[in-house]
């Protein structure tokens, strides 16, 4: 196996046994990026002058990692794959980046993404689309499509993504890799350029569950710079890999297996269920009765927060600044309008308008406030369900990766590709996506495991047990 195809725990073992060197791994990954990224386009920025590792920082984890383009790296272009942030180099590191620096990771660059994480296909980036390493005619999913494609295409050993409504799990599913949306508050958001602050969470994208647990160990924990980060103990997540699934009760929500789900996806998930049953887990049908309102609720709340979060991109302090040729109103209003007109793509504009509308006086109660109430109901659905089970299993996405361009002209059908992932963000709970098969067309299928708040250990325990009895995670895309 080539060095770039290894998992991090294999690399760490190799380093310990002195059979490989960290320099060789990094060099190999960088060569592959050079040779191959033209085809996949997983990266938005790879110029590494600003992120060359400091020799003094050589640490325990010299793992080459791709960072999503919405997570701040000091003095390095951080643009959310949007024109409006062109040239922006934050003067500070995100907390997760600081932690990874301290652990000695090698930053490869910023991974491509849907503009401001608005999308499920990585087609709305200002740098152009990212392609699925398993089939270059298909999307990698999104919005962390660059991160998932980098790992699946062996252009990074690890990646960080962010997940607001499925943006880590859905691309992980489409690209046949492992992705975790941690519990809201488990990982600091300081330095993550916000899409929807109450839903966003940074998480790992890796080749297998073991790597996922190791990477979560490195980024989890309370941060004084983020008031929403939880001050709760952080266990060693790799310990949970040792436990089996005997006597665990796993819920299957009846609302998730109805029309719309692809037959092959359904079949693979049922086979995974049978696998876990054979290993001693029991299954119980549960109900999440407010599931049908999740997408609508999500698109009201997420766009409302986004409309406010993106208001700061006004051309005054940083990023793009445009002035129309002819004065239209006052110079400052012209500056705002022209900068935002030229700087934002179509989907960003759509979401800013949606969110502005639902927060407007006269509409607030009917939309934003109502959606907040439904969000509480959705949360209560999960509280209720977890009284009867230890975890919940569903497909990650209703289909395998769709074709490039297939959904770009139909935003609603694009929004529906997150139908299984959105509720998790609304409830603030953790969920893991891992490969559970391949469709006849050769594209990967993802299994989603949802857990109780701050019980990522349960997800790793179930995920690892399943993974060890399959070889889906060992398959590598061939380009």
């Amino acid at each position: 196996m080539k060095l770039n195809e290894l998992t991090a725990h294999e690399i760490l073992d190799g380093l310990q046994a002195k059979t490989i060197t960290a320099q060789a791994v990094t060099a190999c990954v960088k060569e592959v990026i050079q040779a191959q990224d033209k085809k996949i386009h997983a990266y938005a920025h790879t110029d590494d002058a600003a992120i060359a590792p400091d020799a003094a920082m050589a640490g325990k984890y010299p793992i080459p990692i791709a960072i999503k383009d919405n997570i701040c790296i000091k003095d390095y272009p951080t643009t959310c794959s949007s024109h409006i942030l062109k040239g922006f180099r934050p003067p500070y590191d995100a907390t997760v980046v600081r932690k990874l620096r301290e652990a000695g990771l090698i930053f490869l660059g910023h991974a491509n993404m849907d503009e401001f994480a608005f999308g499920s296909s990585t087609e709305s980036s200002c740098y152009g689309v990212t392609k699925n390493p398993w089939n270059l005619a298909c999307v990698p999913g999104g919005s962390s499509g660059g991160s998932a494609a980098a790992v699946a295409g062996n252009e990074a050993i690890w990646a960080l993504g962010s997940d607001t409504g499925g943006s880590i799990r859905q691309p992980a599913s489409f690209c046949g890799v492992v992705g975790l949306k941690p519990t809201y508050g488990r990982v600091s958001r300081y330095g993550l350029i916000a899409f929807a602050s109450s839903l966003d969470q940074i998480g790992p994208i890796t080749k297998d569950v073991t790597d996922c647990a190791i990477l979560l160990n490195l980024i989890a924990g309370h941060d004084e710079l983020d008031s929403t980060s939880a001050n709760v103990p952080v266990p060693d997540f790799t310990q949970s890999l040792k436990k089996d699934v005997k006597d665990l009760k796993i819920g299957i929500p009846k609302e998730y297996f109805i029309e719309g789900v692809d037959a092959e996806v359904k079949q693979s998930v049922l086979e995974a269920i049978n696998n876990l049953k054979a290993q001693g887990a029991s299954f119980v049908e549960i109900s999440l009765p407010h599931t049908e309102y999740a997408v609508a609720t999500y698109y009201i709340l997420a766009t409302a927060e986004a409309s406010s979060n993106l208001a700061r991109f006004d051309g005054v302090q940083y990023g793009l600044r445009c002035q129309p040729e002819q004065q239209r109103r006052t110079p400052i209003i012209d500056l705002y309008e022209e900068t935002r007109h030229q700087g934002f793509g179509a989907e960003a504009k759509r979401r800013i308008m949606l969110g502005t509308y639902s927060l407007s006086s006269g509409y607030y109660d009917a939309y934003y406030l109502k959606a907040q109430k439904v969000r509480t109901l959705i949360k209560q659905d999960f509280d209720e369900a977890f009284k009867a089970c230890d975890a919940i299993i569903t497909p990650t996405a209703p289909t395998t990766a769709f074709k490039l361009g297939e959904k770009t002209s139909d935003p609603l059908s694009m929004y529906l590709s997150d139908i299984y992932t959105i509720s998790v963000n609304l409830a603030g709970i953790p969920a893991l996506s891992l490969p559970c098969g391949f469709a006849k067309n050769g594209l990967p299928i993802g299994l989603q495991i949802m857990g109780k708040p701050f019980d990522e250990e349960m997800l790793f325990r179930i995920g690892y047990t399943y993974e060890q009895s399959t070889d889906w995670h060992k398959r590598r895309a061939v380009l």
Partner: protein
Amino acid sequence: MKSYEIVIGLEVHLQLDTQTKIFCGCATHFGRNPNSQTCPVCLGLPGSLPVLNQQVLESAMKIGLALNCTINTFVKFDRKNYYYPDLPKAYQISQYDFPIAKKGSLAVTTNGQTKNIGITRAHMEEDAGKLIHDPDIKSSLVDYNRTGVPLVEIVSEPDMRSSQEAYDYLTSLKLLMEYLDVSDCDMEKGSLRCDANVSIREAGSKEFGTKTELKNLNSFKAVKAAIDYEVARQIKMVEAGERIIQETRLWNDEKQMTFSMRSKEEAHDYRYFPEPDLVPFTITEKDIEKVRQTLPEFPQEKIDRFISQYQLSAYDASVLAQDKALAKFFEDCVVQLNAPKKICNWITSALKQELNTRKMDVHSIKLTPSDFVSLIKNVEEGVVSNLVGKEILTVMLDTGNACEVIIEEKGLRQVSDDEALNKIIDEILKENTPIVEQIKSGKESAVGFLVGQAMKKTQGKANPKKMGELIKRRIQNG
């Protein structure tokens, strides 16, 4: 002309003088180099997040308690969305539906009548930056040093009925805040700002008239003048049968007029919604009680105590209490010399006069309570006269020297021994024979003139009381 009632409500923005900003660790000093007190958080850089400064919460609770408000135990922040170049996030973190304090009152005395003005609410928020318009480079610059400086906005009920009441409300509020030691309340530095909502209605009417909001009021005097101008403008309009438009008007201090800035139709829709970056939390009754324990004595309490403890007049007590530092200076003096009335007289007359002419306050002068007490003692003991005492005070403030030093250096010791005084009296009696004759024939009041002459001759050093007695005795005997 009909009779009209004036209705005024005030919104006061108070900058808290905490060491650091409300949501980050940057310093809050006034007048530093532009953008020298900034960080990713107060610059609103992408990815940065706010964290609440606990000191701000405590100060805001103090303010709420001092204004007799109910403290909301559910602490929540909201975003107020609008675009302006001095607002780097394009929203201000403020409090909307759960202000830290609500439903209070402030006692305000106008023309001897005390009235409780209702306090609607007080809430915490962050200040915006400052725009500097540079005509030389034909563009505007932004100084973000002020962004994120903590503010408490105090909103009154529309309970004031005259510009004088509004003025007195502000004076009382400012004094109370100075007592709390939460703000330097300096309007010139912008640490206290005031907007006024003004309307009129026919006397006896229960309905409110249409209000206008007055902004750009840079002094208490401007608040009063702007209200007076606005009331006259509104009455004139109503008398002419015109309708008053709900609008924001800017006060022009030079022209002493208000000008329309924007109408209600142009008003912003701020699209308030809960700030997702700050998790709401609850404070307990115990927390509130803890803050209540730290509250200082309030002005009215101090006045009452000064009257009972030191037997001061209500007037004197209130003059002292109007200035927290002066009141403390008074009490520090009383500790050293148990003559409160005398000390009070010296403070409220001679010392205050000196402070006024110097435009200084008691903090910034070179005078310790013990220096001041020793001056008073010297006057009391007859070492110097009252008049010379006042001159010595001037020199003490000018030089910072002790009273005794000045007396010795300038030879100001009062002349009281009979021999020396009699020598002077000899001269005066000789020079004023007609007056002496008048006195002899029964016009005793003329003695005062002779004493005056003696004081002149000695440059005030003679003991006037003794001098008068000696002159009388000499004329009677002679």
